[in-house]
């Protein structure tokens, strides 16, 4: 039997705010344990929550970015369960009425093997605001506290936007493409720093399988807390295989929450449905309904950057870039910003695109640096392109200048001067030099005249060599052609 895997994602994105969702405690990462755990964070008796404006604006931004319905009124609810990293004994979340409703994102699924790349629309079910829990620290070394876990509540109350999709994905590749797209989008609209190591972007993946061609969804298992795309791919592939094998062996799948172990590459059950909590959701009486007006939406929209799809279309129309180039340049906001800055500094769009996607990206990849850490600034790149354009240097010479700037030198013209890369464009000088080359290579001239076209290129090479690469190649071609025609 042929099987089909059905995947839906729930992503917890930590929102980029200075303070927690319901208190004025800092959310900075990496502080000493419990030094950012204020009276609200540790749930002292009598404390109360007040909602962070920035967190709400982040949610609105996301809603606008995925063309979602944004609820005029949404409600915070309490999700009740006991856990030491949950100091109130309930998590404040949104349940029945989330702030962001149905929306969609378009993903690009890359080509794999003989399967071509394709686009697909993934539907967003909802996105809701909630608070993060604290952290449990295991394996404390102090002997007197052996067998104990430590609780750090610095993270407790950090604002999260939980983004839930429909079960629209049909492969690990689609799920990863969606996760990457979402990861890029939340950074693009600047609501999340995207740092997966620090847990700023965590995915729970619901996986089920069904015989291909059937409608009814299989029983799903949820893989919790995946914090890298590689693990997500591995976890989904393992889980899919496991579910299919289980069913083919005559077994049944039981609804469960599982964890992925990167060391073994396997998933294991954390809790079954029978053990699942009865969360006793109810509207939080300490918080009033959240209202988002049209004016709020308009204000937030005005502050938002151009979205990647819009920017891509503009790059194609305005700069005449191919769909592929425009898509590559808008794959991250920093990359797009770099490209636009290069163009705005006077570079032509097409060579700028080629350089950004070529030399610049290659260097960055080799050194594993993000674009905003590029030693060559957009302004420098534009200067360099200007010198190519005005024939001061050749493309080849430009690569040397680029290398020098990457190594830390700053001024394009100074580098050209220092390395003596200035192109010779004086036709008199070039003519004299070509005359010398022709005189010194009678055999080649004869070959050319006998109809060997290749000999022409050899003569160009000789001329360039004679000029130490500084002659303008176009001029050399032109003059050489003229001379040989005589």
């Amino acid at each position, binding site marked *: 039997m042929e099987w089909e895997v059905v995947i839906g994602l729930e992503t917890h994105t930590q929102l980029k705010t200075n303070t927690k969702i319901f208190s004025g*405690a800092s959310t900075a990462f990496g502080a000493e344990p419990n030094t950012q755990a204020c009276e609200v964070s540790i749930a002292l008796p009598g404390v109360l929550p007040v909602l962070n404006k920035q967190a709400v604006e982040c949610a609105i931004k996301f809603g606008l970015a995925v063309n979602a319905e944004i609820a005029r009124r949404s409600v915070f609810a309490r999700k009740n369960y006991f856990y030491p990293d949950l100091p109130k004994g309930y998590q404040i979340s949104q349940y029945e009425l989330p702030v962001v409703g149905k929306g969609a994102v378009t993903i690009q699924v890359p080509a794999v093997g003989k399967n071509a790349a394709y686009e697909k629309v993934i539907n967003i079910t909802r996105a809701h605001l909630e608070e993060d829990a604290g952290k449990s620290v295991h394996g404390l070394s102090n002997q007197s506290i052996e067998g104990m876990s*430590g*609780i750090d509540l610095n993270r407790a109350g950090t604002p999260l936007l939980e983004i839930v999709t429909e079960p629209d994905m049909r492969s690990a590749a689609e799920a990863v493409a969606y996760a990457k797209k979402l990861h890029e989008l939340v950074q693009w609209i600047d609501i999340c720093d995207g740092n997966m190591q620090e847990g700023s972007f965590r995915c729970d993946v619901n996986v089920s399988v069904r015989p291909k061609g059937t409608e009814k969804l299989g029983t799903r298992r949820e893989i919790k807390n995946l914090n890298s795309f590689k693990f997500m791919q591995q976890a989904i592939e393992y889980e899919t295989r496991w579910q299919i094998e289980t069913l083919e062996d005559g077994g049944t799948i039981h609804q469960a929450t599982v964890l992925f172990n990167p060391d073994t590459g396997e998933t294991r059950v954390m809790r079954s449905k029978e053990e699942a909590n009865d969360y006793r959701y109810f509207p939080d009486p300490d918080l*009033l309904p959240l209202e988002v007006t049209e004016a709020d939406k308009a204000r937030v929209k005005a502050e938002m950057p151009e979205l990647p799809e819009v920017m891509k279309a503009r790059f194609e129309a305005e700069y005449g870039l191919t769909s592929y180039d425009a898509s590559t340049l808008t794959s991250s906001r920093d990359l797009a910003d770099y490209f636009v800055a290069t163009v705005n500094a006077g570079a032509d769009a097409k060579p700028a695109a080629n350089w950004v996607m070529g030399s610049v990206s290659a260097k960055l990849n080799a050194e594993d640096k993000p674009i905003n850490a590029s030693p060559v600034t957009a302004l420098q790149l534009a200067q360099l392109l200007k010198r190519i354009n005005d024939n001061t240097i050749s493309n080849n010479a430009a690569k040397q200048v680029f290398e020098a700037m990457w190594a830390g030198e700053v001024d394009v013209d100074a580098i050209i001067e220092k390395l003596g890369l200035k192109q010779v464009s004086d036709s008199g000088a070039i003519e004299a030099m070509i005359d010398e080359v022709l005189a010194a290579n009678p055999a080649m001239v004869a070959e050319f005249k006998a109809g060997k076209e290749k000999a022409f290129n050899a003569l160009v090479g000789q001329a360039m060599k004679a000029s130490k690469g500084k002659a303008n190649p176009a001029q050399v071609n032109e003059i050489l052609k003229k001379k040989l025609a005589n």
Partner: protein
Amino acid sequence: MALNITDIKRIAHLARLEINEQEAAATLTKLSGILGLIEQMQAIDTTGITPMSHSQDVVQRLREDVVTETNQREAFQKIAPVLGNGSAKQAVDGGLYLVPQVIE
């Protein structure tokens, strides 16, 4: 909706309240009485009535995203409970609150 002893034990566990057989039986009697009182609600037809969570029709006020809290760990951990199980030490270590091993 009559309660039984299994319900009592289930909700006691949900509420993380230890309860022995005897207490469960006594609780069943009292809670059944209270639920009898509550059942009076079922006499009213509430079809179409909007549930009321708050007495005033006001919306949530938003707080500016500015850090106002300082580190008060020392003061807050001064009131941490005693560890227990034979240890008279407070249930904190290196700034962390101590609980029995959390297994995931």
